[in-house]
């Protein structure tokens, strides 16, 4: 009999995601997919299927149990508070959830999204080739909606999971540059040089009215030179559009495929993960880079991800410098919590 993952509690913002629904953008279908693709792939790699799916949870938290058999899980993302029954686990780790045990994931000191990938496969239908949830159009995941308490997802094709919890070491996890790098455009000519300067020098506060669709930025008003209405054109992940009120929006995983406001800049691919992990109330800044710099950052990240993740036992007698360094990179939350 196969095991079932039961959602005991789900705060707002929990959904099933895979890498996204590709190939249907030209028909108005949003790809969806993870907000933080770096943490997402870290969880998938640790669980042994780079092409798989994960549950994305947000600040609302999540509680899970296994029914009918044990389920291996890999978790990675922001510095969330992760507990297996009473035992505190590092925010990036792999472990077995046995029937009767309860996994509790709560917002921790930093980060806005966390991913839970099964050692196995969610038994969910593919919708246009993907099980990514896009709740706004009712596609994917579990019945096209966000997860809620009582939901159950069957795990098929299980893979062996670590007997004892293991820490996931992924050097790219938790990287948090001081500023998000952007490429200006495609409509920077709708803004005066002063407005562009303001955009790049301001400290922007992430609004509470932010979600998977858009991160709303609070700060100075960006004046348009040629009006705030353009003929709709395509929109990429990380596009920063400024509607008539002059308050910029960063368009995220659940963005619409096209939009009708001028886009002053686009966050580069390598910095989307860190931006996604920003919490409402946190501040962000932007720095303009060239295409070549953006691609160099993208290549460095691809190389790091290509090298994969390492699983390390939590109980160690010797700590290698690499091990300690990697722990610092994931926020130092692990210290003092080992049992």
């Amino acid at each position, binding site marked *: 009999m196969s095991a079932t993952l039961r959602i005991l509690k789900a705060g707002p913002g929990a959904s099933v995601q895979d890498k996204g629904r590709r190939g249907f*953008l030209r028909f108005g279908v949003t790809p969806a997919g993870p907000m933080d693709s770096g943490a997402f792939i870290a969880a998938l790699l640790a669980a042994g299927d780079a092409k798989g799916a994960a549950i994305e949870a947000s600040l609302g938290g999540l509680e899970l149990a296994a029914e009918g058999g044990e389920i291996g899980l890999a978790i990675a993302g922001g510095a969330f508070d992760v507990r297996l029954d009473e035992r505190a686990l590092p925010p990036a780790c792999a472990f077995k959830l046995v029937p009767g045990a309860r996994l509790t994931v709560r917002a921790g000191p930093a980060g806005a999204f966390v991913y839970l990938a099964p050692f196995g496969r969610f038994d969910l239908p593919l919708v246009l080739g993907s099980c990514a949830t896009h709740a706004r159009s009712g596609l994917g995941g579990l019945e096209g909606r966000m997860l809620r308490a009582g939901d159950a997802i069957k795990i098929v094709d299980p893979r062996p999971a670590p007997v004892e919890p293991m820490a996931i070491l992924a050097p790219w996890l938790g990287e948090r540059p001081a500023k998000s790098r952007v490429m200006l*455009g495609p409509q920077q000519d709708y803004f005066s040089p002063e407005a562009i300067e303001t955009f790049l020098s301001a400290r922007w506060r992430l609004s509470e009215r932010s979600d998977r669709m858009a991160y709303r930025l609070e700060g100075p008003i960006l004046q348009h030179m040629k009006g705030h209405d353009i003929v709709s054109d*395509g929109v990429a992940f990380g596009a920063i559009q400024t509607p008539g009120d002059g308050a910029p929006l960063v368009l995220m995983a659940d963005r619409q495929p096209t939009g009708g406001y001028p886009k002053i800049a*686009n966050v580069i691919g390598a910095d989307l993960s860190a931006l996604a992990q920003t919490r409402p109330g946190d501040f962000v800044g932007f720095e303009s880079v060239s295409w070549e710099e*953006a691609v160099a950052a993208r290549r460095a990240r691809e190389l790091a991800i290509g090298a994969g993740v390492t699983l390390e036992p939590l109980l160690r007698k010797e700590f290698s410098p690499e091990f300690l360094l990697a722990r610092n990179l994931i926020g130092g939350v692990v210290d003092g919590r080992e049992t």
Partner: protein
Amino acid sequence: MAYQRLRAARMTPAPYDFPRYLDAGEAALSVEFGNSVDPEINARVLTLDAALREAKLAGVEELVPTYRSLMIHYEPLTISRADLVKALESLALQGASAFAPKARWHVPCCYDPALAEDIVAAARILEISPERLGASHASGQYRAYMYGFAPGWCYLGGLPESLALPRRASPRGATPPGAVLIGGGLSLISANPMPTGWYVIGRTPERMFALEREPPLLIEPGDAVCFEPIDHETFFALEARAARGEVVASREALP
């Protein structure tokens, strides 16, 4: 105000002499042919879209045609921006011929005010009768300019000038399924119910987006579209057939 903007946009309908290559980050390039909603500008977008789909360049991931630009989502670690632009320019040189749609869709549409919720209100603004509005809409020869907003929402150029009216100042409630709309000088066939600033002037029993049907989406950007008026009874009969998975619009292949 929207109407004035529309007018202003229509004052510069000419395509640029050369397309503009605008970066949307390092992994998307917007090839812009003009700055207005115009059939000639859109034809250039669709010509490049067709040529690029044919060319199947490694690293080109998704193509999103819009009114006046083609968004190319690409993997810059596979194809550089410079090589992509080079390829686009050689395709543009080859594909100078006029855009020709591959298919024409005949879409059944009911203009009965009982189903076309806003046809009376729209007709009042246009100072014509609802019957005249329906007949005039059905006489148009349309082209699928682009999809946007939500899955299966297909924006159409070719609305008769006499039916151009501004979008609403504030959105109406959720559209009925299969709503056919006008607004801002364009027409639109919608899929799932959503609030909108446009006017529902007809309904089609066809489903623009139906996951359980193969194919789930029917009309390609660039296809020609025309509407065939149907009465209330026919609408419900066709809607029942569409619900069983049948395609009730018809596709005519064009030479």
